[in-house]
């Protein structure tokens, strides 16, 4: 494959095609729209389907419906649309329907600055819908990673029957870099669905740590799916002896597989007492600052989270034991830093926050390392 100059959002579109995504529903919103434009052009070529829905609520509903029908499905949006999708993201978590939601973060709250970058949806990605639920969120830092993490988002979503948020941002989404994408024929997405009838099927069996496979509608298992608390057959229930095992299974199904779900890049230096920890576009600032610091002879660790949720608790805790100080640059008022502080204590964390649409600068990181 040849090297191409490509935008992050475009790489997401290609990642979806490569991962076997065959349905996209969305509603235009800056700065995510390129994802929809590319998939409206490319999906029919591979027999996939694209639809522009009447709003983001409908888009989220449609991808869940198509997923139940057996198609790997995706939508893409930004802050205001992401807010509108939250109820149905909760539905997908509750009913355990795989789907991928791309959030190209822009400056908020509200309409904010549609063309300005932000990382202000970190907590919304985790807790935007009501109630306790598992969620996965991945954050790319480059165009190539936008492709790779999109492929990965589909894999994790199908395997663990959960919505996966691709938490990218306006900078990574609109940035152009030369990339060499892998040959799509070398990507072999695993099949986790039940695609033909064979024996008994229990759609929501509650074995601890279990992720029962999802049977596509129409294969011969006529079962019920609901957003209500449900028994192993899918029927709504108010019985605690059915609700409690469900809560236990679903809210621990990711915990038991963190080794596979957590992705992070570590560039550690023996003897370093300071670490810079970041994600998304801010990780690029962090890398720049690390290079400047090392060029001046400072020892510094660099940690980039590719998986933001579930939060890499063990890895950050270990980092806290290794260094005296963790600098966390991000384009919000400290949303991820809360999590880092939760693991290593407030005294070790230096927040570098910027929520005005501009990137954190390497100098801001270097200044924070000084004191």
């Amino acid at each position, binding site marked *: 494959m040849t090297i191409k100059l490509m935008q992050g959002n475009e790489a997401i579109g290609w990642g979806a095609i490569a991962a076997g995504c065959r*349905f996209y*529903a969305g509603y235009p919103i800056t700065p995510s729209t390129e994802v929809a434009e590319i998939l409206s052009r490319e999906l*029919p*070529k591979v*027999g996939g*389907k694209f*639809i522009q*829905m*009447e*709003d983001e*609520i*409908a*888009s989220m*509903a*449609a*991808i*869940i*419906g*198509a*997923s*139940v*029908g*057996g*198609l790997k*499905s995706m939508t893409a949006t930004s802050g205001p649309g992401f807010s509108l999708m939250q*109820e*149905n993201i909760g*539905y997908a978590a509750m009913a355990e329907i795989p789907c991928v939601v791309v959030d190209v973060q822009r400056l908020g709250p509200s309409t904010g600055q549609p063309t300005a970058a932000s990382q202000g949806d970190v907590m919304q990605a985790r807790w935007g819908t009501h109630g306790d639920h598992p969620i996965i969120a991945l954050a790319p830092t480059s165009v190539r990673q936008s492709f790779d993490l999109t492929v990965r988002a589909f894999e994790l979503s199908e395997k663990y029957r959960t919505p996966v948020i691709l938490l990218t941002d306006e900078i990574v989404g609109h940035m152009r870099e030369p990339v060499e994408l892998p040959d799509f024929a070398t990507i072999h997405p695993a099949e986790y669905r039940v695609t033909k009838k064979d024996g008994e099927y229990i759609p929501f069996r509650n074995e601890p740590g279990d992720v029962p496979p999802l049977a596509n*509608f*129409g*294969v*011969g298992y*006529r*079962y*019920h*799916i*609901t*957003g*209500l608390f449900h028994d192993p*057959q899918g*029927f*709504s229930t108010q019985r605690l002896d059915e609700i409690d095992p469900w809560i236990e299974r679903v809210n621990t199904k990711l915990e038991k597989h963190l080794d596979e779900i957590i992705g992070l890049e570590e560039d550690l230096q023996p003897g370093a007492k300071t670490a810079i920890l970041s994600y998304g576009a801010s990780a690029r600032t962090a890398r720049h600052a690390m290079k400047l610091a090392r060029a001046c002879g400072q020892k510094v660790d660099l940690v980039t989270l590719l998986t933001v949720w579930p939060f890499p608790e063990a890895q950050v805790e270990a980092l806290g034991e290794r260094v005296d100080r963790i600098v966390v640059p991000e384009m919000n008022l400290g949303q991820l830093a809360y999590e880092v502080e939760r693991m290593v204590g407030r005294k070790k964390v230096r927040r570098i926050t910027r929520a005005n649409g501009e990137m954190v600068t390497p100098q801001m990181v270097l200044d924070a390392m000084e004191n």
Partner: protein
Amino acid sequence: MDDHILEAHGLELDEGQLPPENWFERSETLQKLRKNKKFPTIWCSGCGIGVVMGALIRAIDHLGLKNDDVALVAGIGCTARMPIYLDFNTLHTTHGRALAFATGLKIARPDMKVIAIMGDGDALAIGGNHFIHAARRNIGITALVVNNAIYGMTGGQYSPTTPLNGRATTAPYGNIEPPFPVCDLAVAAGASYVARSTVYHALELDKFLSEAIAKDGFSVVEAVSYCHTTYGRLNKLGTAADMMRALKDTSISQTAYNNLSPEAKAANTKIVRGNFVNIDRPQYTTAYGNLITRVQGGGK
């Protein structure tokens, strides 16, 4: 009948009164019901929604559809509980969004008969946007709207179809908002098939639902029902039987309506029952299938 029930009523077992052996398995229509789960229904005794459910299974049976080839998608509310009792692929979704979920499912499985089951609040208030856009796209989904003119499950608040001046728990002084004419809305938005009947006219509902489900494009059947528990009580409309009977007196067939003088038509306040639209327009998933063929053939 169970022995303890017979005993409690001082009755003796009369074999002649019992249904024949395997009566459930032998009835093809009843095979559309889920026998393992959830009866009795959550609906109040006397509710009209059960009549609509009966009409729906008779219509599906009449068309000879296999259970596996039918998907029922519902939102939230009394009506939206209907799929629980029926033995198809059933998807109970979020409030107002049944048609949006159904749109994704229909696109993924164009071969499947997808039926969205909604109440009036579900379909026309919170789901109003999806209703008009599904009709505009002419996607091959049947929208079954059970119109009982009230939010029943939450306790009788006024809905987009509550009659003017009708009382509801959130309209204690009478409703000042004019109601939506459901069928007119569907016609204006572009549905291929639009019909209305009432739960008093169950056989007419069977017929309309059969035609709607058989239709290739977006079809709408409004089943006018009632809620004696909330709306009936607040407006002193009597028992469920009284309200059921009233549907006979307050409705008029389309044929009879068409024979009225212009003045009588203008003065008509009765519910008109009939099939208002039955046209052929390109169906969405067929059009998209053609688009794929064209694009894969190298077309622009």
